[in-house]
């Protein structure tokens, strides 16, 4: 199609400027589910704060102390506690929502075919959808740690980070690690995101795509708890989701995060290719 001369096009039409990110962003941001998701992400730290304020932190609850047990030691501790709570499953939900819903809902509304005959090329549509879903996911996933940090600083002060094992990290170091970890979690979710995107091209049912991606997270988490699988578990999409805890030690272990980034990017490459491969050949019958 790119070999055709532009004279075939209507005046002012340029394939590369179809479905601009700004337009797609407006289409998505005005949706109620976007606002609700953002609100929930910002509300969760408040809920955790309230729960800790009312119920207190029971440090005797487990044999080995974790980040929750030291959650009220300082503001940065609270932020890490919230992120720890959200790491396993919660953060995957907005990602699965934004990516899984993005094309399937268009198909569901029948608006997909009108975009395609505008015409927005399939690759361009997938690109815009991917970019905007990624942007929304980033906002949602940064909203949570940012709110947690703000609430933590206000409620528990600007102390050093108390590590659950022993020792502490200075505030400056721990805030920069916190930012790094937030970035890591984004990268980690890319495998879930692209899987959801792939499903979104396969099904016309938005809930199916979102649920499928969340299901992947659940199944992967369950398998990750089966120790009989041994080192095979290293290659589960959710295996690295807590790996960031490795750098919250006096002797930081970066390997887990490096492995997590490698695996997530690899899966993301394959799932994205599957999404594009399926979508570009698909007969749009919705």
């Amino acid at each position, binding site marked *: 199609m790119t070999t055709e001369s532009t004279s075939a*096009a*209507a005046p002012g039409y340029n394939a590369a400027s179809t479905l601009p990110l700004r337009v797609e962003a407006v289409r998505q941001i005005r949706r109620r589910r976007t606002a609700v998701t953002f609100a929930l992400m910002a509300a969760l730290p408040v809920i955790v704060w309230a729960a800790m304020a009312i119920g207190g932190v029971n440090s005797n609850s487990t044999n080995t102390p974790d980040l929750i047990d030291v959650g009220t030691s300082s503001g940065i501790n609270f932020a890490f506690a919230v992120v720890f709570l959200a790491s396993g499953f919660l953060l995957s939900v907005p990602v699965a929502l934004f990516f899984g819903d993005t094309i399937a809902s268009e198909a569901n509304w029948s608006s997909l*075919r009108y975009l395609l005959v505008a015409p927005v090329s399939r690759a361009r549509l997938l690109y815009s959808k991917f970019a905007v879903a990624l942007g929304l996911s980033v906002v949602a996933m940064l909203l949570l740690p940012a709110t947690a940090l703000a609430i933590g600083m206000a409620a528990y002060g600007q102390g050093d980070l108390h590590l659950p094992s022993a020792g502490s990290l*200075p505030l400056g170091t721990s805030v920069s690690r916190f930012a790094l970890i937030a970035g890591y979690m984004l990268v980690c979710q890319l495998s879930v995101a692209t899987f959801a995107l792939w499903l979104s091209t396969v099904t016309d049912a938005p809930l199916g795509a979102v649920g499928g991606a969340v299901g992947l997270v659940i199944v992967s988490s369950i398998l990750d708890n089966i120790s009989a699988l041994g080192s095979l578990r290293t290659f589960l999409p959710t295996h690295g989701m807590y790996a960031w805890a490795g750098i919250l030690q006096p*002797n930081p272990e970066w*390997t887990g995060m490096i492995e997590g980034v490698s695996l997530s990017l690899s899966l993301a490459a394959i799932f994205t290719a599957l999404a594009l*491969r399926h979508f570009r*050949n698909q007969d749009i*019958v919705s």
Partner: protein
Amino acid sequence: MATAVALVVGGAAAFAWADPPPSVHQIDQIFTMPETPGSSRTVRIEASYFTTGDSTPRPAVLLAHGFEGSKEDMTPEARFLAKHGYRVLTWSARGFGESTGQIGLDSPDREVADARRLIDWLGHRPDVLQDGPDDPRVGIAGASYGGALALLTAGYDHRVDAIAPQITWWDLGQALFPNGVFKKLWAGIFFSTASGTQGGCAFTAELCQLYQQAATTGTASPAALESLERSSPSSVAGRIKIPTLITQGQRDSLFPLGQGAAMARAIAANGAPVAVDWSAGGHDGGDQETSRVQDRTLAWFDHYLKRDQTADTGPAFRVTRTGGVSTSDGKMVEHGADAAVYPGLAGTSRESVALAGGAQTVTNPAGGMPPAVSAVPGLGTLAQLSGGGLSFSQDFPGQYAAFNSAPLASALQLTGSATVRVTVSTGTTAGAVLFAKVYDVAPDGTTVLPDQLVTPLRVSGPGTTTVSVELPAIDYGFAAGHRLRLVLASTDMGFYSPAGLAAYTVSLPAGEVLTAPVDTALRGGQTPIPAWVWLLPLAAVAVAAALLLTGSPTGRRRTVSQSQPSAASGPAPLVVTGLSKRYRGSDDRYAVQDLSFRVERGQILGLLGPNGAGKTTTMRMLMGLIRPDEGSVHVFGRAVVPGSVVLSRVGAFVEGAGFLPHLTGRTNLRLYWAATGRPTADAHMEEALEIAALGDALDRPVRTYSQGMRQRLAIAQAMLGLPDLLILDEPTNGLDPQQIREMRSVITRYAAGGRTVIVSSHLLAEVEQTCTHLVVMDRGKLRAAGPVAQITGSGRALLVAVAADAMTPAARDAVAHKIAAVPGVTAAEPSDLGLLICLEGLPVADLLTELLRLDVPVESVGPHRRLEDAFLTLTGDLA
């Protein structure tokens, strides 16, 4: 010598069994040995011999168990070595397992003599490789009690060829009475647990007395020290001249790294190859690295017993360093740092750390209580965590002196024994006992005692003495910004300290610095990143590329050229050539089959067909939504594939509206136009909104719209930008008659401007009134194409109903045939109800006459415009 030993083999092969290949056979037997050389009393020693059952002479390995153990502990390692081509002998030492006799603490004429007799036995076995008569090729490995036995046997028996002692003693006197201070906690565990619950003493009488005296007084008599000396490999230091793999534990307050250092120094001085391995574990606990040590022992024996030059004996010095906890499996991460040279405890270089603190008074509490806490036997796992910042050591105020360094400017990796001189004043004649240790103090004040180790020192009194203190050997990283704190405490839980209340003054000589050894040759120590971390993304990109390069439809069709030769008046708005489509799962049924037609500029084409005729599939193919299996679509001379830019000249309304329900009608249209990326002015938005005629509803969310409103909005959307070709699929569905009329006029006016419109419908009446041309489809096939008048004809279609059962199908066929031949009749076909007849010129009255003439039992005659019947009429489809 060996032949002189009376060796009685009792109870031959008790039982033997086999493993899957290579099968290991275990033969249990009992040896009877003299209690001491020349003694008439005997002890029974139980043993197990492991082979793979073949008769090839192979090197042998003696595996000696640790204190409180028995030969059963060694079975896994014995089977492991047997599988790798060794004859392995395990046995229970005197006083352990089923073996009888008293414990002699690796006494040369007891336990060591037993081991030598076992070597004698190996010297007679044809399946053991022999270096000479009664000289088997043999190595000894063992931990702790067994390790010292390996060293001592090597010193007493020249037939031993290689040893691998682990976490053991070199000088037992120094280990139990370091610097003359009794290590009471460990000694107590040693003696009491071996004695069991009977309250007796399982040791030889001499050793029992030794312990009782030491436990009561905290000192050892010269005779006792002499006895410990005999059980120490250091007593035969000059005679151990064989390759020795020394594994010493970092979490070992019983036999600390210094014991291994003395071992390595002495044996290396004899010219024998020595490798030193500081493992993570030790007697205090922690990870004993069993599997790694076992593998390294095998490699050591492969090299020095099998004489396999390719077997890698590993670096001369290796330190296991503990990282953080792996988030992957929750275990401590360990990694090795290697150096080609073992520098001892003084390091390859030294760093000076200045310490501050004036003279301090240290009280020795009466009775030595409460004691400071450092190492606790069995809590070595926690000690290993000390690398991770966890510490449980405790000092009591007033009972210690502390000297702090400034925060370290850079990290300090201390490997070996730091040294410092301290000045101690005491008024008592008993002198002073102090326990020296170096803490790691974090900026937030938390302290960690590396490996929980302390060094005791004894200063004679009364008076002031400056002594040099060799602090515990460790491998520990002090982070930048942390301080070192030298503490000298008057008590320690693990040691015997004077009971009398006393006060000492402790100070550092002027300008004294702590000398910290550093091994700059050690390399590694970072957690290795698995190779897959780099390979996986590369493989994934390759897979992704393969996925995208294959599965492309461009290869399997598209034989039609991209552009059609254009006519003089410019390319036709639409040319459809040989279009076919079968949906997946219905390969035998065509949705569209071999469809060809052409639309010229200014035409309003009606695509007519009953439901399921393939109209919508065709329209989707026109717009690249569905790929045809065969054939091609050209719009304004350009082949249509998904995303073809020529589609920007096409406006479409296909199978209902598609809007974002949460947005208003106006916003939907605005964003749709924005999605095309074309200039806002080109949209002709107001004209489109006029067509939609939604009024105030335009600013309500689309989800509140009725179907007709959505329909009008969708048609307005299709007309945005006034496209050259407008395709409308069933545009009047859901509209009321008034709106249908308006829609017809909109379409007619639209085409009047020279633009082209394609309208699909299943109602002939619908298209007849609007369209200039028709394409009739049924079951995926083209039935007719051409101007409306040409297809519908000028005449009328009539349905002639006949009485039921009055005519056979054959009769109807015959009549239809005759009627068709009448002038003024263009077609006549039988139908279920009677006959369908198309008139052109023949009056109805004349037709009726003709029918009656043919004896057709006419019941009624009426106009018939139903599309399905019109098809039959027009296309002659009899299928």
